[in-house]
């Protein structure tokens, strides 16, 4: 259905009504919004599941992997080595932190943080007191290599944005769809002379 200014609804009324229409397009918009919501939720589900049902412990940074397309990965085991590699300020490089933690049954697991960083590692290897840098980790007890670091904002950022945009789109589309077939009173607008 297309938009129309429907005078026939009240032929003698001085205030004509407008029926918005465009039901098909609005349905498509709703589907787009729902699609975004679903996609965002799927991306969020994996970290959320681990945060809710996984086991929490503290992991210690053990090393940093430096990756650059075309070159072999380089393992850096001290902050001095990291410093030497970050001095170049190369944006084609990605640094990934490796963390070590102990599971409830005493097994030591080494995992790579799900988020890397281009200019320098997200975490230095040791803190000011000389101890390994630590971060909270949630892992799957059946498969401890599946672990997430919820305090790293990028874990959530992209899925949350998609979910938010989807929710906003869905709300707007649902509202527009609701009013699509309902007539809206159009105000009287007298011809206005800009020079008066």
């Amino acid at each position, binding site marked *: 259905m297309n938009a129309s200014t429907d005078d026939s609804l009240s032929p003698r009324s001085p205030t004509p009504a407008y029926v918005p229409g465009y039901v098909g397009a609005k349905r498509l918009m709703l589907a787009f919004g729902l699609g975004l919501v679903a996609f965002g939720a799927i991306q969020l589900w994996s970290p959320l599941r681990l945060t809710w049902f996984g086991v929490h412990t503290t992991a210690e940074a053990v090393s940093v992997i430096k990756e650059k397309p*075309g070159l072999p990965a380089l393992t850096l085991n001290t902050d001095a080595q990291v410093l030497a590699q970050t001095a170049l300020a190369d944006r084609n490089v990605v640094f990934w932190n490796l963390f070590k933690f102990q599971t409830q049954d005493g097994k030591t697991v080494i995992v790579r943080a*799900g988020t890397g960083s281009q200019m320098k590692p997200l975490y230095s290897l040791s803190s000011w007191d000389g101890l390994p840098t630590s971060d909270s980790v949630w892992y799957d007890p059946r498969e401890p290599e599946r672990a997430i670091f919820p305090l790293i904002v990028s874990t959530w950022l992209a899925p949350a944005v998609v979910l938010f945009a989807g929710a906003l789109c869905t709300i707007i589309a649902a509202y527009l769809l609701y009013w*699509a077939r309902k007539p809206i009173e159009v105000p009287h607008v007298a011809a*206005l002379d*800009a020079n008066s």
Partner: protein
Amino acid sequence: MIITCRKKIPLRWIGFSVLPGASVSLNTAVVGAAFVFSVKKFVENPAGVAFVLSLPGFLAIIFAPLSSFLSDRIWTRFGRRKPFVISGGIGMIIALTAMPLAPNFWLLVAAYVLYHISDGLSAPRDPLQQEIVPPSERGRATGTLTWCQNLAIVVFYSVMLGRFDDVRFFAGFPLHGESVIYWSAALLLIVTLLLVILGIKEIDPKSSLVGQRLSPRGIVRSLFDRELRPVYLLVLSHGLLNFFVGFGPFLTTLLYTDQWNYSKQEMGTNVAIGGVVNLFIIGLLTFFADKLPRMRALRVLIALSLLWNAFYFCYVNLILPDKRPSLVEIIIFGEVLSIISILVGLVYMPLIYDYVRRNKMGTFAAGMQITTRGTQLFTLNGIGVFVWAYAALFQPPAGESTRVVLRENTDRTALLQTLRQNTWQYPRDEGSAAPISAPPSAISAEVWQADGIAAKQGRAWEIRLRDKNSEKLAAEKIRLEKLRSPLLVSEKRLLDSALVADARGEGKAAAEAREAAQPLHVEAGKFGAQIETIDRELARRAENLRAQITTALGARLLSDGEQISKAALAPALIIEFSTAQRANTRSVERMLDQLHRSIPQSIDMRVLKRDAGYGLAVSVLASRDSAENTALIERVSAAVTHAVEKRAPELRGGPLTRLSVRETTALQLQLEVVEQPTGGYLSPVTRAVNAILGWFDHAPSPTRNLDAIARSLRVPGQTTDVRVNAPAGEHTLSVVAIFAESSTSAPTAIPAASADDIVPRDDAITARLRQLLGTSPTGPAVDAPATLRRARSFYDRIESAAAAQRITVARSVLATGYAPLKYDYMSGYIWVLGLGVVGLWLTYVFGGIEKRGGVSKRGVEEAAAS
């Protein structure tokens, strides 16, 4: 569904109508802040970055006014504003999507230009919003829009911008933080654009302007017709005041980072805290936005903001001894100003549109954009000139500079008198003809303290010789650096691609890349050589001035080594305890603070990594009497147990177990410093904030800068335990340190840990240490030269650690070099205060015109009549 020209609209329409504007706020933040980092991927040269960032200013003068003006003069089946908003929005989406994918500088700039042209095209978004919302509800709409804009800015600066360099896998593909930032903005724009396309219907206002013939003369006449002309006075007034509130982003950044030495992160924290507070305040103020008498409220608010800024200026310059507000003060003063400016915004926007009828909203928006841009150009350039002129008249001049420390306190007049009695010569190029005498007025002296306290008396002085010749040389160096920077960047890119080609076995490509890099290397090398020559020359000239000053002041200068008033070795104990888990940094700090109060001779507490689990190691100064030491160990054990119970009970898995007690040697040093390390001035605001924080046990410790020095002196494997003290009211720093042990350490020497910590130097400071350590009455005899070298090396580390906390260990000459003209960015407040007064006066001029009937609320009259 939303339609325009209604006399009354439901609340939800206001919410929907502001969404496009709110979405654009996020885009503006993205293209403003994140784009700087995107450009820096390709260009290091600041001049190049500045040029690219200046493009929007030029584009905005053309496209935004043009589209707004045209939107009053067309009518299509889609409306008159929507075609511009939609086409502009599509262009912005394309540009935002393309920016993170741009493979080179020129495509990035093309996307940036497309974005700003499209942004200009979509400018009729504002008139469209004003046509949807009737005059009586525009205050609320402006409040809602401000709230959404604020939310977008807070989220962007506190969450998104910091993720620019992150990389993560998303749906199986690597996704860069840069892309997340740009594409998030694009996605929200798509959603709000769909709202505009499908959800907003423009009603034909049957304007007689439609089809009007366009000519340059006609455009100018329309922009400045007699109905709109007086309203521009209000726009001008707001333009002056708006700048006044914002102080100009460039100058604000310089004031925070260059003058007050805050980091960008601290600036971001300030923005984020202010933004979060504003979210609540705007929500509250929006309720009252339509209840205020707009013109009267505007005048009162302008006057309030003027007064508040004048108060802030006086507070910083007259009350704070270092003329540097704390972050808390910046937030408090800034927040009050922010509330006033929000209120001004809530009143101003609806007020000006009260005077404009619907069919002239686009024309008025065009005129408003031109007026606002023109005002910005004037105010921003004006403040730059003003700050420069103020510096040239009242600030220390550019030229050679030397910072010296005197034996006694002296005042400025007396020192200048002494200095100006001498003959001074301009240091000139080696081999130049006869030396040129400098007039006595070319010499200036100011008390210098690293904490910025502007005292009238002091021991440390910065003495400068105004030297135009050196100023020109320094300017030449900056010019050469600008030329060299892009060459270095291009060379590095080529060499990197050569490395990648090597790894792929593409030898020919690698050779070509290296060959292409070679001329760049040669060219950059030429500039580098010229820069080095200038550096050497400037350093030589500064050294010449230092020699002249040293001769002029003679015995009044402190001798090197004199600043070490005590150096001794003392016996110490390290007592280790086991804990159930690893103590966090904050717990350790709090336990240590408690331990310092209960055991005055305690040195440090640190977390211990054991084979299985964690522990705490506590160090204390001991005596030679073993019975006394046994009692001390018991007292320390009890104090640590108490501290753990009170501050970190989670560390106790059961009774706290003492693992071992070790004897070692501690080094004690007492040094004279320029500043007063503790007990400094606390401003009224800081005292009030500390009193409030004290209720929650969070008041900052007055010795936190000393704790920070101790923290940075602790180096794993070298200096394990450190305590830094400063007697209240004295210019002295007292440091106790225990060095990491090795099996080769002699029991009466400071244990040697690593060779790189030993820097053999034989100067006045080493001689003084040798003298003091060799005759130490309390400590064991020094039996290893390594001990002396380690003490000397540790002294150097204390100097740099203290400097990081703005505490300067005294020495005869602290620094020598070329010093540029020093700017006081806060002086810009004088300029903007003047502009604020003009802004206030303009509102009264407008009021007079309105009284005489020269302008009336056409917009309100029209809405009432429809």
